[in-house]
């Protein structure tokens, strides 16, 4: 895999190239597609911002492949559910949440691009519960970079990568940035 970045470098480099991203995405989406194919219909719900981009791509793919009823779709903005307002000088920007399907009794595939401490997913689950009581939620993440601070575990993982807690991981998408790739900026 990628070689570790020099300590304290602050240099940004690509750790997953476009080609590798494609392989990871295909395998990840195929696993989820077959798991979700049986039984009741699912809803794909993405966590803004990055998770929503990849969730929309997944949803488009699942819709195209759906024989019967198409999966529902939703997007979450967790900025009102964070646990760290008292640690920051300014409030996070509110981006808006849209869930148009009834949550009670639904099966939700919650999608994010990078899983790190787990706090974002915790916030997303609380947000979903404020809309109703889903039958169950499964978690799909493209990248799991470790360093969990809460007991949160993904059900579907694209790729696990080794990072330091101070590193910054950024996923770029062809929809928004022209190309799919994953970048790491070494922490100081």
């Amino acid at each position, binding site marked *: 895999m990628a070689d570790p970045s020099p300590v304290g470098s602050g240099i940004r480099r690509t750790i997953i190239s476009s080609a590798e991203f494609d392989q990871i995405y295909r395998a990840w989406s195929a696993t989820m597609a077959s798991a979700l194919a049986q039984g009741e219909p699912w809803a794909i719900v993405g966590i803004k911002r990055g998770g929503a981009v990849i969730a929309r791509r997944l949803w488009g793919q699942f819709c195209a492949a759906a024989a019967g009823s198409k999966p529902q779709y939703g997007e979450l*903005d967790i*900025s*009102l*559910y*964070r646990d760290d*307002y*008292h*640690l*920051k*000088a*300014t*409030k996070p*920007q*509110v*981006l*808006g*949440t*849209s869930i148009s399907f009834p949550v009670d009794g639904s099966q939700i595939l919650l999608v994010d691009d990078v899983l790190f401490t787990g706090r974002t997913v915790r916030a997303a689950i*609380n*947000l979903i519960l*404020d*809309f*109703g009581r889903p039958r169950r939620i499964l978690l799909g993440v493209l990248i799991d970079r470790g360093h969990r601070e809460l007991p949160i575990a993904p059900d579907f993982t694209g790729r696990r990568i080794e990072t330091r807690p101070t590193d910054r991981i950024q996923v770029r998408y062809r929809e928004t940035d022209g190309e799919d790739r994953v970048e790491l900026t070494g922490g100081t």
Partner: protein
Amino acid sequence: MDWTRKHLLGLENLSKDEILYILDTAEGFKEVSTRSVKKVPALRGKVIVNLFFEASTRTRISFELAGARLSADVLNFTGAASSTLKGESLADTARNIEAMGVDILVVRHPCAGAAEQLSRLVRSSVVNAGDGAHEHPTQALLDIFTIRSIKKRIEGLKIAIVGDIAHSRVARSNFWGLQKLGAEVYAVGPPTIVPRSLERLGVRVSHNLDDLLPEMDVFNMLRLQLERQDAGLFPTIREYARLFGLNGERMRRAKRDALVLHPGPINRGVEITPEVADGNHSVILNQVTNGLAVRMAVLYLISGGPSGAAPPP
């Protein structure tokens, strides 16, 4: 941009970007009121006190609901039934309440400048809910938000504010906000309550509503304070209504997609007839709904950062 202000005292000193940021934040809050559990935890554990020294039902309830939707604890202090009757000063009242641990004070007071003065005396954040005839920023913000949600822009719109502008904080805050966002603003009414000197604030003054009717995109009708008749500012309420009230006949001469706003409470048949208040041009109820989202956005943005950090006022 990052929101750094600790208080919201008026729109006069806000930049265009800051106003847009509040409106964009309010967009994100609209959806909360459509859920079955209409709450988000963002201000959980925060205490908001509505310090109202003037009568108000809708503004106070709106702020109370906004705080509740953010999971804050909201307390109401109404001047009439309080120790101000015993002669306690504004500063002492506020400091006493603050000593119990309050994060945000929402203040309405009959004196211009009261909110700003309070902001210098207390450690909490202060939101101006109306100070004399000076400013009522959240009302103007929700008016602007309502217009923008339908017209998709403010720049270039022709907006008439009609009524008792000399005594209106709603008008003044609207003047500031709308002009910063590029609208052409007209102040309309009889010369006794819409003086030419208002032109110094950058608005165009007109004493003839009919002349402006076909050009305006928006009419914001202010409540005629009926007590003013005793002060001889206009001959009769009926004459005022005939010259400056919006009725069905006038709306037929206005643009087909013109909007009618009113901050409430309405004097039906005076500044606006029931036909217009309940008609297709009216967005009065939208204003009330949007008012919640806008006030949630304001409370969210100004509620504190790290304790001890003091961002600029």
